[in-house]
């Protein structure tokens, strides 16, 4: 009984921690970036172009199915991505997470970053 209670506590703590880190990441997004609208949202052509951008630059780490490796390369079909809006994701692509191995993609043209966002949305 004591073990079950301990496991339940750990599970709750983990869920809270994941939720907190997710919301913490998107809380860092500046208001003006959060408010940006994807000019390519839901456009089939842009989604196709975004899939090519994904294949070119993202697939090597996040894998063809976008589910990552379960370790350092996280899944992109996740609650974290689902919770974010397009502006948040574009901001994150531009900034990267250099400390944890995700490069900044500010070198990609802005239109291609939005196409990538459209693609990531389409696979959620």
């Amino acid at each position: 009984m004591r073990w079950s209670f301990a496991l339940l506590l750990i599970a709750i703590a983990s869920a809270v921690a994941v939720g907190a880190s997710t919301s913490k990441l998107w809380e860092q997004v500046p208001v003006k970036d959060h408010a940006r609208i994807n000019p390519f949202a839901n456009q089939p052509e842009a989604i196709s172009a975004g899939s090519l951008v994904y294949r070119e630059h993202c697939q090597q780490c996040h894998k063809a199915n976008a589910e990552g490796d379960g370790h350092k390369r996280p899944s992109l079909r996740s609650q974290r991505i689902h919770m974010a809006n397009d502006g948040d994701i574009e901001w994150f692509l531009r900034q990267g997470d250099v400390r944890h191995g995700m490069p900044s993609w500010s070198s990609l043209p802005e239109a291609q970053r939005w196409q990538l966002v459209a693609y990531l949305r389409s696979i959620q």
Partner: protein
Amino acid sequence: MEVPILRSKSLLKSIWLGSWLSFCFAILLSTARAQDKPYFVTYSHDLEEPGNLEIETKTALGQPDGGNRYGATAMELEYGTRAWWTTELYLDGQATGSDSTIFTGWRLENRLRPLIRDHVVNPVFYVEYENTSGADKTILEFVGHDSQSDLAPPNATLRRDHQHEAELKLILSSNLHDWNVSENFITEKNLGHAPWEFGYALGAARPLRSAGSARECTFCADKFIAGIEAYGGLGDTFALTIRDTSHYIAPLIGWQLPKGVRLSFSPGFGLTDSSLARVYRVGAAYEFNQIGNWFHASNGGGE
């Protein structure tokens, strides 16, 4: 006189053959895609993606006044150690017409990005150690009073001079809309003797089209990046002046081919008497993705 020429030709053939075999091998092994600005001298704040290895050759073709035509190649092995740290090894060689083909030395460089976030201006620190001979003609940077006359003497004379040099660069780079604008401030010191030398490199480049194509294509405008570079020397601590220094302006174009190969070309035009009248640069790059995974195939699976 015939013997050195024949030797030069056979060595040149070996270099070409070796380079092409490396590239063919690379293409067969992977479908990775390199992506970078097509600068030859200027650095932007783009670092190699962690775990990737890029192999690039940068060749400079020129002819100094009073000297023979030459082709000098730097083979660059660039590895993304961390997302904020890229390390590179250069192997340099050159072939001079009616002279010889020689290996001219190596360089080891590191680029470190101190700021985690992307800013309007992004600094990168560059630290390099060079162990080259005076016959190195790859001219990957111009500092101090570097002049075309340094390139004119025969290889046998030039290679007697050994250069152990440390080079520091402050790279400042911005991505503004689809433009990349980069400024490099260079300082170099021969560790044996000689003063600190200074130089600069400036570059601006952008893709011909911003949006990506919805289908795979080779000749789409978004596969091409065009730009311009300017670079030159700024004197040294003995004579901090731009008198007798070399300066160049060089338009450039990069082309992202299928199968991960990137080609770039840049004709450079000398702006002063100390500069080569023209220097043509050709680059070819290939990127191997996640080479660490080759040794840990079971970890996370393939692509």
